[in-house]
């Protein structure tokens, strides 16, 4: 199983070389196709369409924007996944459900703040179970100071609450088997994922909830000849938040003592121990950092899409894995970059293929990367 590095297999050699040529061809084809589509040109060969078509510029730009925003959420989530991989040494299949935790805890907080302070007509139980139409709460970041406060508090609690859950999970599920194989930890994480996911189901039920009230969210449009490109305040919130959090993580890892210790531990656990770095504390800090980012990412998803269900975090996890693998598992900068690539790939793929296959194409991209460059694009380092 530990075949990927150093040790050669014949399958690898067989598969790699013709594949590079094929990949280059596909890449060039897609670029050419895109250019022709944007120009509205269609090339036919013997009556069969081979290249081009029509893709309005505004639709294309909307896809780019949507892809970037999705990529930011993926990246934000991926940082935590990547860190736990490099410091604890396993692929955490419960990570997707930590998004769910953040989304629910944050939204409940926002509902309660907006419902109790603002409208004061709902009881806390109803609000906490998200049983009312959110439009009545006017939960938009530009919807007045109460809504603004509700959203900011929601963000904070989403982060902090997820940290709490994650720490409890680590203490109960992962710490007792810290020294076991990565596969044992991985299987355990699947168990954790089921518990968390179905606990959310148990409490909030299977219906998706919807939050934002579109009327109150400010929109900014640019009109092109082919139509409008629109961005709203929640998109911008996500952009600002994600970028600043990523910068924050960068600064933290580069300058803080614990951040450096995390990188040190990701690099060389034995040496970290010999040097006197308190490994358990570093692990706890890893969960805190990863958990808070993931929780916030969950809440920003709610803001951005305006809806969330108990199963969504799990469905999202594969995209996050795709991003993290693409960027080189273990590297947080890889996770950020991989997130953007996967997000863009997912949304831009709809230029070429039916939108139902958008997600599939992102997974396919991940598999291609695993085949061509198993160590990821930011290869060579397993650095947090």
């Amino acid at each position, binding site marked *: 199983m530990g*075949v990927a590095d150093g040790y050669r*297999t014949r399958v690898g050699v067989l598969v790699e070389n013709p594949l590079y040529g094929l990949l280059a061809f596909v890449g060039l084809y897609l670029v050419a196709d895109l250019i022709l589509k944007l120009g509205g040109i269609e090339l036919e060969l013997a009556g069969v369409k081979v290249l081009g078509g029509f893709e309005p510029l505004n639709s294309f730009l909307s896809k780019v924007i949507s892809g970037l925003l999705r990529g930011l959420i993926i990246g934000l989530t991926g940082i935590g996944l990547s860190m736990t991989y490099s410091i604890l040494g396993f692929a955490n299949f419960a990570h997707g459900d930590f998004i769910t935790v953040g989304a629910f805890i944050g939204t409940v907080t926002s509902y309660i703040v907006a419902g109790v302070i603002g409208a004061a007509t709902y009881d806390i139980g109803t609000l906490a179970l998200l049983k009312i139409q959110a439009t009545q709460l006017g939960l938009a970041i530009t919807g007045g100071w109460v809504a603004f406060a509700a959203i900011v508090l929601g963000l904070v609690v989403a982060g902090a609450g997820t940290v709490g859950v994650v720490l409890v999970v680590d203490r*109960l599920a992962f710490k007792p088997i810290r020294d076991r194989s990565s596969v044992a930890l991985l299987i355990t994480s699947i*168990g954790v994922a089921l518990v968390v996911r179905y606990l959310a189901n*148990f409490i909030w039920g299977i219906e998706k909830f919807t939050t934002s009230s579109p009327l109150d969210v400010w929109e900014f449009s640019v009109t092109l000849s082919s139509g409008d490109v629109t961005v709203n305040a929640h998109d911008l919130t996500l952009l600002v938040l994600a970028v600043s959090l990523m910068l924050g993580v960068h600064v933290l890892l580069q300058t803080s003592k614990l951040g450096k210790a995390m990188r040190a531990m990701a690099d060389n656990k034995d040496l970290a121990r010999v040097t006197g770095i308190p490994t358990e504390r570093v692990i706890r800090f890893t969960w805190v950092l990863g958990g808070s980012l993931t929780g916030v990412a969950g809440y920003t998803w709610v803001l951005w899409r305006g809806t969330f269900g108990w199963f969504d975090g799990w469905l999202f996890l594969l995209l996050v894995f795709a991003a993290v693998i693409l960027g080189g598992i273990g590297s947080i900068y890889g996770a950020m970059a991989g997130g953007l690539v996967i997000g863009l790939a997912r949304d831009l793929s709809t230029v070429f293929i039916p939108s139902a*296959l958008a997600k599939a194409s992102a997974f396919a991209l991940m598999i291609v990367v*695993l085949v061509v460059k198993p160590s990821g694009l930011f290869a060579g380092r397993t650095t947090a």
Partner: protein
Amino acid sequence: MSVSDRVPDRVSAVRDSDPAMILLLLLAIYAVYLVLGSIAGVDPLSNLTSLTRWIGLFAIAALALNLHWGYTGLFNIGVIGFMGVGVYVTAIVSKEPMAAGGGAVGGAAGGLGLPLPIGMLAGALAAALFGLLVALPALRLRADYLAIVTVAVSEIFRLSVRNGNIASFNVGGLALGFGGGDGLQLDWGSEVELLFDALLLGGVYDGLVRAAEQLTGSPVTVDRVGYALILLAFMAGYYALLQRMGNSPFGRVLKAIREDEEATNSLGKDTDRFKIVVFMIGCGLMGLLGVLWYMNAGGGGGSINPTQFRPTITFYIWVALIIGGAGSNTGSVMGGALFAAVLYRGPRFLQTVIDELTGTDLSRFARQTGFGEAMAPIAGSFDVFPLLLYTVTKLQDLQLLIMGLVIIYLMHNRPQGLLGHRKEQAAAIELSRPDRRSGGDRAVAADGGVEDE
């Protein structure tokens, strides 16, 4: 089953105790279900057939997964994808033909109309080939990467069949297709009868029909019983096949790959070839399992639909295997049976029994109430009964939560499974000391004299 006739009786008795253990467990499970069922007045026939259905399916599933993970260490968490390929291809091959453009509705699609056994063979073959497609790039990856790739592939499959563009297409004047988001009706006739016929057991089937008509007067019951029997037969077949595969030099190499691939390679075994072959075989078995799983929705013709192919069932199967203990076929069957009876069917059955006993309809209560209503009395008057009731009514959803806890518990406390470590030697014969040399003349070895023989 794999016992050679040359092996002494004493030994075969020991070997045979494995199937005996399985039988004993099955009997115990049936007894509990029958007793509880009769208390609650559940029809014993439907009680037993639906229990058998799930025991059979999960045992088969655990056996197939055990070949990948338990024997060879291939971390496949895309089982449902391979099941899907199997059942979809079978559907297309064996569905009634439909002329292209004939169906007015968009997604309607027919098949090639070939006999069901051929369809099943094609389905298993297609799943094996799909496995090859995954294996070529993925088998050189580390276990955790292979896990991610397999689950991604199963999702790619699900998303692809959901896509409307291949819901229906025209091949040589026939409308074939995957049905898109609407899924496919498995209208290949009475699959149970077809399978009995294929096994040249048409007479047995007719006998069953006559017996059922005398007993209950319903032909549906025949299909239920027949389906249960078919599943048990397949379970026995899978078990025999995999035992034979495991108890052979072939199986020995698989175990060796699981333990240390590089060392095995250095002993002159072409480990890549073994991994590819075994991955394909396992995927083929999963493909066939897919057909069995969806062919008969508890008595009637089945249907398939992309939402059924979410990874949830994969995790069920993993829990079943972990309970039984990866690496042992006997353990896999027992794990599958325990999982089906206790964790999978258990909550629903318990709910039915409670319904019958209390004369209530708990599932209606679940629809009417929610977590909030259940919690409110606790806050007010410490009345936990509504929460308990809600919990009971949500048992079906909660079973996955419980499974999660079971996984965590087993990984912490019994990573070798409930049955513990089982010493199953991978060889075609019993590995005892050959008769010609009794324990007494070990001295020969001490001076190295064996070489002269």
